[in-house]
């Protein structure tokens, strides 16, 4: 069976991490990885990237702000008040 080259392997990293590779492709992927330091590093960089993205999650109340990212300020006071009163009025509507 044809071996992967590194430039082919890098395009499959997400499919690999998602467990979406069929069995034979997966084992070729893993075989390549065992013998290739470059791809091993690449995979590790990719994992670090995904982990780093997860730290941007903004949904936890009181989570650290991320300056300059849209949405960082949350809803304006006025919009929040409007929505709260729309919610309150909904039963009478």
């Amino acid at each position, binding site marked *: 069976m044809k071996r992967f*080259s590194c430039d082919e392997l890098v395009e499959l990293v*997400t499919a690999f991490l998602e467990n979406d590779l069929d069995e034979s492709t997966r084992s070729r992927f893993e075989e390549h990885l065992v013998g290739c330091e*470059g791809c091993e590093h690449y995979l590790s960089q990719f994992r670090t990237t*995904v982990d780093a993205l*997860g730290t941007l999650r903004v949904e936890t109340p009181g989570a650290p702000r991320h300056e300059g990212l849209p*949405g960082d300020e949350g809803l304006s006071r006025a919009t929040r008040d409007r929505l709260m009163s729309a919610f309150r009025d*909904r039963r009478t509507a």
Partner: protein
Amino acid sequence: MESFTGGRLPPDDVVVAALRAGDEAMFATLLDTWSRGMLWLARSHVSTNDSAEEVVQDTWLAVIKGIDGFEGRSSVKTWIYRILVNTARKRGVRENRTVPWSSVFEQERPTVDRSSFQGVDDPLPGHWKYLPAIWPTPAPEGELLAAEVRVRIGAALAELPPRQRTVITLRDVEGCTSEEVCEILDISAANQRVLLHRARAAVREQLEDYFETARRSA
């Protein structure tokens, strides 16, 4: 799922029952927990922060209206995000800012610069010419990523084509599963994976640049 619901909100049936009963504290909690992420996502589709805020406002109004009819076929958050994305897309169309979502055809160019690999005249064509570096170990659990790294990632996300940005935001930032993303965006699993891969590769490239610069100036 833990991560997607924030780990702090009660289960969906409790949330839905509370909203139907007019529980203002529950509504306020949802608003304060999800709106920032929603604003961020809306912003990929419309041209100003004000527009994004209106999209989020209209989404919550639709939620207020629709909660009695919510059938629970998806999670509450998936349902709300579907409304958000649809509202944002319509708004984006009006603002002429919309990329055709139905078209799957992202550029087919490779996600890693060809110059990183050996060429046809080299001993091992297609193999690394320069070994990718080992990055410094990520900060321990719970510790914040260096502010500069966050800024770099934010900039990388801002430069992505809207579809890629939406998918990577939902998956890697918001913590949705691939099934949830497909449902929210109405795209196939294969399409989701392609968009996610291209987006991650682009962010990785930015980080590589950052770490390389940091290493040189060290």
